[in-house]
């Protein structure tokens, strides 16, 4: 896959938008997922994910082709999300709405049928609780937790994406895990 990606990027650098379309197809789910887990709101997540790709396209000449493309792309995504979180009201993520029906509505777009079976509703509630716990994390812990446990990236890659020393990433993962434990241990 890396070889295809590198070839497409060379075409994008020359200005070929079709090649960029293929890049978007390859990475859209990962990027959207990062944004969604960071921002909670799917409209905001889509905006952030689109902005990520637009930025990537406009700045493609700054990407070093000897390095992993996904690292560079995810860095744009996480930086954008962190920016957006900082611009929000500080009490935003404590908003009561998040725990309630809003969360279920948000997950309901995942389900295909109109009527959900009981256990599916339960699992949606569990999903909402997990998501809420992630959102309660301060943004510096949230980004490492999302990259480690949702995107399942190795610690060194997370350090590359966030441009932080490995030790700092480890400390943040530890603290993030402890904070999550406080919210999730009773589930």
């Amino acid at each position, binding site marked *: 896959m890396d070889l295809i990606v590198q070839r497409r990027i060379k075409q994008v650098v*020359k*200005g*070929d*938008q*079709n090649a*960029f*379309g293929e890049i*978007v*197809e390859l990475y*859209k*789910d990962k*990027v*959207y*997922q990062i944004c*969604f*887990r960071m921002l909670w709101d*799917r409209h905001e997540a*889509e905006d952030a*994910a*689109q902005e990520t*790709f*637009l930025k990537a*396209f*406009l700045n493609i000449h700054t990407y070093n082709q000897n390095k992993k493309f996904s690292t560079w792309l995810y860095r744009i995504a996480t930086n954008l999300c962190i920016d957006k979180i900082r611009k929000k009201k500080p009490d935003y993520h404590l908003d009561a709405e998040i725990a309630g029906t809003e969360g279920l509505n948000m997950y309901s777009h*995942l389900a295909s049928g109109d009527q959900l079976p009981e256990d599916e509703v339960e699992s949606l509630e*569990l*999903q909402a609780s*997990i*998501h809420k*716990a*992630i959102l309660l994390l301060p943004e510096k812990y949230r980004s490492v*937790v999302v990259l480690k*446990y*949702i995107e*399942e990236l190795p*610690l060194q890659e997370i350090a590359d994406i966030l441009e932080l020393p490995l030790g700092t990433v*480890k400390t943040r*993962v*530890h603290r993030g*895990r*402890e904070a*999550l*434990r406080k919210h*999730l*241990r009773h*589930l």
Partner: protein
Amino acid sequence: MTSCPKRIVHYMHEYLDGDIQEEAKKELKDHIETCKNCRQHFAELKKTIALVQSASHIAAPAGFTGRVMALLPREGKKVGIERWFKNHPFLTAAALFLLLMSGGFASFFSQEDNQFAFTKNSALKVENETVIVPAGTVVEEDIVVKNGDIRIEGSVDGNVTVINGDRFMASAGNVTGDIEEIDALFGRIWYEIKMVFQ
């Protein structure tokens, strides 16, 4: 809990990250076997990880790629032409042959061809590479706009052709003839060929 050394929790995290020293691992194991609190703490951490990992993976919404592509600035014409040549080698050869035979070659590739050009008509207004047919006016002529846009607010008694540009039609706008937008090089070549043979 009070007597547990702080390093035990630290070892738990090292263990979970998969980079714990053998000695520390043994100490952690021994401690957890005897200490109920730390055993629970460790179990909760593992459960937490399992829960977070179970968070459903969400795919980007339908139509996402299309919306991203719509955000991109207009593709440079050069790339479009190169790609078109690559995808249509036979047609390219045929079209170039016709153009060369007809002597249209020079004008087709000349610098002038990339420039904004339009049918000269005193009724037309021009703003920022947009040709405007003002409201209330009637242009009794075919209009061709190259490398620019046209906005039709009045009437055109004839055909409108836009090459490498967009056409905007006001609700009161009216065109009696054909409206043609030629964006792709394919259409462009046919247009040029048509012109050559006219």
